[in-house]
């Protein structure tokens, strides 16, 4: 049931990402200050945006789960958060490389997006221990949903708080995600963003399908075992 539309989605993702890559290398201008390394920006920022959206989506799916009691929403929420965390590792890694290349340090506190992302990432890392330390599967799903909702509400609040704090201590040097990007950069950025979003969606659908199939298999096995037990 989840695999509907997976193939065209994957195809779209591949196409867009290829286009994005082409644009990054051949179309977008070289940045005057930072040079070639700046191109990491086209990976780093879209990944961050998609990851944050993934977290919020996880929260929305969690709300659906609690309201309906339908476990499939919990599965969607789990996969969304799971992938967002993995993308998050990518965000932190690319952010670190970029910082090193641009400013010489492996980490800078200048960028509110990066900093607030670190906090969000730390928070969501708790999702796994919380989830897997509850044994009863129904309760596990419910508590995870509660967490996903609270954490999802937290993401924007946190970003605002960090941004406000940064305004005082580190006046913004570069406006990466702002609107003052020259035309070619903007186009490349948007295509990269789209590609990243499609990639996330594809992976999400893929993992959902795989997990769903695994659950069906387990259910069938259990039913078979039960039937054998009763017959015996």
């Amino acid at each position, binding site marked *: 049931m989840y695999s509907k539309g997976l193939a065209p989605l994957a195809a779209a993702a591949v196409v867009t990402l290829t286009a994005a890559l082409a644009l990054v290398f051949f179309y977008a201008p070289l940045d005057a200050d930072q040079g070639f390394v700046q191109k990491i920006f086209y990976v780093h920022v879209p990944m961050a945006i998609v990851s944050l959206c993934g977290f919020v989506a996880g929260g929305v799916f969690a709300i659906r789960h609690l309201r309906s009691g339908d476990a499939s929403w919990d599965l969607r929420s789990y996969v969304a958060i799971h992938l967002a965390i993995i993308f998050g590792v990518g965000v932190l890694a690319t952010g670190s490389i970029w910082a090193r290349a641009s400013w010489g340090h492996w980490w800078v506190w200048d960028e509110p997006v990066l900093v607030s992302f670190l906090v969000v990432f730390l928070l969501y890392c708790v999702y796994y221990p919380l989830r897997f330390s509850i044994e009863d599967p129904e309760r596990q799903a419910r508590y995870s949903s509660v967490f996903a909702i609270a954490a999802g509400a937290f993401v924007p609040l946190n970003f605002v708080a960090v941004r406000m704090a940064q305004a005082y201590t580190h006046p913004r040097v570069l406006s990466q995600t702002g609107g003052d990007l020259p035309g070619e950069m903007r186009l490349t950025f948007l295509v990269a963003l789209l590609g990243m979003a499609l990639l996330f969606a594809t992976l999400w659908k893929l993992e959902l399908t795989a997990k769903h199939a695994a659950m069906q298999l*387990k259910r069938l096995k259990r039913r078979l075992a039960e039937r054998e037990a009763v017959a015996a």
Partner: protein
Amino acid sequence: MEVESAPGQDVGAGLLEAAAHLGAVVDDQAEVARPVRWSRIGLGHGDELIAHVEEGHARQAPAQLEVEEPSVELERRFEVADFERHVIDAHQPRHMCSIGFAAMEPAIELEGLERRYGERVALAGVTVSLAAGSTLAVLGANGAGKTTLLRVLAGLLRPHSGRVRVLGCELPRERWRIQGRVGYLGHEALLYRELTGRENLRYHARLHGVDDSRVDGMLAAVGMARRADEPLRDLSRGMVQRLAAARAVLHDPALLLLDEPRAHLDPAAGELLEPLIGRASGRTRLLVSHDVEGALTEADLALGLKGGRQAFAGVVEADGGRQAGAGAIGAEAARELYR
């Protein structure tokens, strides 16, 4: 006075007849659908009519009664409502009364109740019907699902499938309506060790919206009036159990769920609690106990669980299960559960 109406005869007619015997002019709006044999009629407001119902003719037959006789006698209680009495004629004192009935449906109705714990089955196929005021003994070895069943009926656990009606409330949909109508006495006392007996009971009284004055009466009833102001950690396990029983009935519940209620109690204490949680209390009770003979003595129905699944459910025969009767549940069937 004893009045009998023949089986098959409509109870309305029987009542009219009975009432007529007592000189009342009866408003023939009284209507109940079951044939009944009356054992006693009181004509006062709120009086109880104890009717022996021929279950075979009942509209709602319990789903699983393993009996050979076509009908089995169970007691049903009807509450007299809408009773008016006034003199019609000064010379011939007669009474006008209209008697309405609140015929109580079964306190508990289960059909195919199922509860899982992950992949494991905790309860499956539990089907039984328990009339108001009756006692159901739940028997089974450790881990058979007895405590799970109690917790489902208390509204603490949600049933995963099957039909569950407790005190007229459909679970899990109407779980909130059960709250405050069930008395639960389980393995844990549900009392705080650092607080005194009185403080604990006051806390529960407030949670249930029960007046504080009941607390003193309850403390006296369980024989803890003298030591009511000592923290629980200074009291013996038996005393804590008595306080737990007080907590369970403090809000005058219609249904009692008892999990080994006599554990930790000496016989004197057990007798003390009898009018509160025993058969004499008149409440509908579910009794879980490893004392098979004892439980069967005070039960009307028995339910056996083995590995979460229902092994049997049926009426306990009259003499406490010492002899295996035709189809009724006895101690022998219960022992099977432990093999």
